[in-house]
Each structure stands twice: as C-alpha cells, then as structure tokens.
C-alpha cells in the first residue's frame, strides 16, 4: 500500500506529541547529564520509533524517507540527540534494505524495531579516507574472521548490531554485519564530546570475530559504494535534524525578543534583532528545502548524494551561525546554561564534522558540479 499524506500527517502529529511530552521537557537535563535518563530509550522502542522506515514484513511501519526525515526534524526541535540516535539507526537500516541478502535480512531485520543498528567506518587512522582502513576480513572456510578497531560510531555502545567496513586479503572493501554478542566483540571508550550529549559515540574493538558468509552486506568490493550510500542517507537526515535545531533556536530567540524590552521597546521591534531573526528563519527554510529535496529524490530514485551534502554543509554552518545570532539576541542569558541556545550551538557543531566534514561535503559538491 502506498503511503498517503494522511498517514504521514498522523505520524508527524504523533512525533510532535511524543517530543513535547517525553523529550523537550528533559532536553536541558540530557545535555547536563551527558546521557539519556533511564527508561527514555525504552520508551522510544516501545513507541515503535525504531521501526518507522523498516519494511512491514519485518515488523516495521515502512514509512518513506520523506516521512522519516520530517519526523527527525520535528523531534530535533525538542531534543537533537534522540533525533541523531534515530538518524544513525535509519541510515543503517537503509543499507540492509538496499544491499542485504535475504537470509541476512531475515535473520536481522525482525529485531530492528527493538534494537539499534549502527554503521562503522571510521578508524583511528582517519574517517574520510576509508581506503586507508586497517580492519581486515580474512576468509576461513564458509566464514569471515574480522579484526580491527572502529571509533566514533554513532550509537556505539547503545547499538547491538554493527555494519563494519573492512578490507579483504586482496584489499577489496566490504561491509560485514557483526553482532555485539559475538565472541571477540568488545566495546571501547565512549567519546566525551561537547554536544549532542545524549548520543553515545564510541569505539568497537573486533578481535577475530567470526561471522558467517551471509553476513556480508552487498558484495566483496562494494564496501565503498555502501559507505557512500550510507553517508548520503545520513546527510539527508542530518539536514532534517539541523532544520529542527534551527527551529528551536528561532523559537527561543522569538519568544525572548517578545518578552525582553530595551528602553520600553520589545527587542523584536528593533532592526538589529529583526535582521538576526530573519536570518535564522531564512536559513531554516533553506535547510528544510535542501533536506526535503534530498529525501524526495531518494524516494523518486533520482540522484541525491549532492543535495544531501548541501543539506548538511549548509545546514550545519547555518545552525551554528543561527545559534550565535540567537545567543546575541538573548545577550547574557544566551551565554548561560539557563537557556538552550548554547547547547544548540554545541549540538549543531557536531554536524559540521559527523558523516564527513564540511570540507568533505564541499569537495563532493564541487566534484559533482565539475562533472556536470
């Protein structure tokens, strides 16, 4: 059955209610504590949010990427961390749907509405140079033996299933699915990042982890393609999260500018404030247009990697700059932990780096333009 506007409308309304009741009230608490409170993630699972994009035959709701992206935008207006946690899961599920063989998908996807799946490419040697990775997959009979160290994994430690980029003996790139319960699998340290404090970002150490042949995602030699595809999928959703962060910045600035007066004049009536509010609102709308175009193109089977890179490059820079403008409107309160603006800047700053730096985005956008 195709997805109707009414279904998406109900989903978005439900996400708004969940966000307003469960996430927005503890947004500051999550930032201060540096983690999700006990029980919150379970509520997300119980409400079926991990299964928004998962196919129906695997127990999901099979909403399309437009609906998933808009859901994350609305969620990020209340708490960006949980939206990024779901982004990491959704982009990984997309790779199973696109590249997974039937026996792998039948084995893993039925659990994907209950547990987080993660994608891990980055290694201590670097993130944006996947060809330089050291993780090895050695064929032994019908199995693969994987050894290596993956870092900066979104949801590392929270996720239970990991797609791991590795090199074969003949230096071909491939992605393997590894389960946290497999012998030789170990969690490493959690990064102490300055923003998106709820999202665990951590390390996974694989010491001769043996996986069966059907745990190969796609084909041998397809690793980089799958990695690029996962990046593009992630960047669409990050654009959505950034639009949500900017909405949060905008609302905070607008509300404050109505309440606060300078010489008996509400701040919003001052031209210096208007310029900042208008800039934030325009940047938010532009980011929304970019991520929605990315999602629309993906659903329509048109190329979307370039516009996805634009959504993240433009969106992340805009959200950081917009946060700074909102901070300036709030003055000293903006610089205080009492208001959310300072943590929104820290949250947005993560996305100038994650899933490829701005510089990497701009390189890819330029390459795409040169090739036209």
């Amino acid at each position, binding site marked *: 059955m195709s997805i109707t506007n*009414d279904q998406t409308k109900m*989903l978005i309304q*439900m996400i708004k209610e969940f966000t307003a009741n469960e996430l927005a009230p503890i947004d500051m608490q999550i930032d201060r504590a540096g983690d999700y409170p006990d029980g919150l993630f379970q509520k997300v699972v119980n409400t079926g949010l991990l*299964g928004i994009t998962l196919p129906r035959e695997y127990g999901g709701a099979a909403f399309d990427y437009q609906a998933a992206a808009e859901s994350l935008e609305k969620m990020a207006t209340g708490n960006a961390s949980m939206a990024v946690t779901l982004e990491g899961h959704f982009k990984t599920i997309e790779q199973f749907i696109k590249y997974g063989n039937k026996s792998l998908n039948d084995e893993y996807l039925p659990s994907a*509405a209950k547990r987080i799946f993660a994608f891990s490419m980055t290694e201590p040697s670097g993130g944006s140079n996947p060809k330089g990775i050291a993780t090895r997959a050695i064929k032994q009979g019908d199995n693969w033996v994987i050894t290596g160290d993956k870092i900066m994994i979104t949801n590392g430690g929270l996720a239970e299933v990991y797609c791991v980029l590795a090199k074969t003996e003949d230096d071909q790139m491939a992605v393997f699915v590894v389960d946290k319960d497999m012998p030789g699998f170990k969690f490493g340290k959690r990064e102490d990042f300055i923003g998106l404090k709820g999202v665990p970002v951590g390390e996974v150490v694989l010491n001769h982890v043996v996986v069966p042949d059907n745990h190969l995602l796609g084909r041998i030699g397809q690793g980089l393609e799958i990695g690029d595809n996962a990046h593009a999928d992630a960047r669409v959703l990050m654009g959505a999260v950034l639009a949500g962060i900017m909405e949060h910045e905008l609302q905070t600035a607008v509300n404050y500018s109505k309440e606060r007066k300078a010489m008996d004049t509400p701040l919003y009536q001052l031209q210096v404030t208007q310029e900042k509010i208008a800039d934030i609102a325009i940047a938010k709308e532009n980011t929304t247009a970019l991520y929605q175009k990315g999602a629309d193109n993906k659903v329509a089977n048109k190329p979307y990697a370039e516009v996805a890179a634009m959504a993240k490059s433009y969106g992340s820079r805009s959200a950081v700059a917009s946060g700074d403008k909102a901070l300036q409107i709030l003055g000293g309160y903006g610089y205080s932990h009492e208001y959310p603006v300072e943590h929104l800047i820290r949250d947005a700053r993560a996305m100038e780096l994650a899933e490829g730096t701005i510089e990497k985005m701009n390189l890819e956008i330029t390459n795409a333009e040169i090739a036209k």
Partner: protein
Amino acid sequence: MKIVVGIKQVPETDSVKIDPNTNNLVRSGIQGIINPFDKNAIEAALQLRDQAGGEVILLSMGPDSYTTSLRDGMAMGADRAVLVSSRAFGGADTLATGYTLAKAIEAIGDVDLVLFGRQSVDADTGQVGPIVAEFLQFPQVTFAETLELDSEKTLVAKRQLDSAVQDIKLTLPAVVTVRKELNTPRYETPVNIKESFEKPITIWTEADLNLDLAKIGQAGSPTKVTKVYAPTKDVKKTVTLSPDPAQAVSELLSQLD
C-alpha cells in the same frame, strides 16, 4: 471480551467560536481531535483486551470528518470502528445522542462493556454515558478512577467522591465512564498508524439501525439552546506599579483603599 468505546471528536483549539444565528459551536475549519477523556477510555479498553482477549470497537456519531479521530483511536490499537453518520442525526442533544448510540451498540451485538470518557471538553455535560446505560438497561459506574477485571463477568471500579471513596463491583454487560486519573493513554505507534488505514470503519445511517425516528436528531432532542455565547473579557482598569518595591507597596495599598 467485546468492548465498545464511545468517542467524540472535539475542536483542538480552545478558541471555539459560536454561530450567532444557530447558537451552535462552529466546528468547520478547526482541527478535530479525540476528546481527551475518551483517550483514557480507549486505554482502559486496550488494557482489558490485552488481559482478557477480545476486541475493542470504537463508536462515534458525527460527520465523515470524524473518521480522523476514529483512525487516531485505531492507531492507539483499537480493532475497528463504527461511525453513525447521517443528516437525520444532526442537531441531536445528549438524549437523542444517547438513544442513537445505544441502538448502535445493540446492532454491534453481544457487547460486554461500554466505556466513555467522563465528559467531553467542548460541551462538558457528562450525560451521554449514563443515558446510553439507561437505554441499554446496563448497570453503570460514572467517573471511575480504577477499573479492574474481577472475574470473567464482573469488574471492580473505584469512584472518588467528595468525602468518600466507593468500591463498586458491577456485573457485565455494563457502562463505565472514566476519569483521566485512571491511566495514561498510550501513544499511537507508526505501525498502528499504518494499520489504522487497513482496519474497517463501518458507517451506519438511520436505515441500518432499528430506530424510532422521532427519538433521533433535532426531533428527538428536548433540549433547546436559547443562547450560547463566549464570555467577554472585561479589563476595567490597568495600573502599572513602580519598579521600586517600597513605592509599589504604597501604590498598591492606595489602590485597595
């Protein structure tokens, strides 16, 4: 256990307008939602179904647009829905509504329990549940704060009164209206939202029910609304006090004199 939950679609906004000609609420153009107390009734029904098995059927009376609220209820997990809808039911007061819903419940057949929210947030009467119980000749408990299955054919409910708490055991079939303290309604889920479009909504008109036409709609409604109006907010005088606390106290005292 076959449970029917009566739900009403109410305007989402608090700023309800009244048509000066008809004295009725203007509902067009305003997003409709499930009456919040009815969500507690749906939640109670789902919990009882999960415990005892059976099905939860949503029942409402109103125009086609009420299907959005019925879908919302099914997205919480209800199994199917019945909408009683026809121009003939228009203008019904609580008596005619209660009569019509009772006839629909008879038509559904073999119903063990009928749940309602304690009242609607737009009309605030709290009458429809009790009226349905009277027409069906079912025992009823209103304003239930707890509701538990006691045996296959009995429920136990707690009612909070001003100076006492009543524990009531009632034999099924029965009607219960519930307070919001009873439970926390579950969220819709993405999967249930999709499924809500695959579950049936049966639409019945007066032709589908065994009705006395004189008891439905405007004709069956003894209540005559002579005037409904929004209270005007009348700010008589505003005085801004001095920012200096001592001066402000002195000014305030002089105002109170």
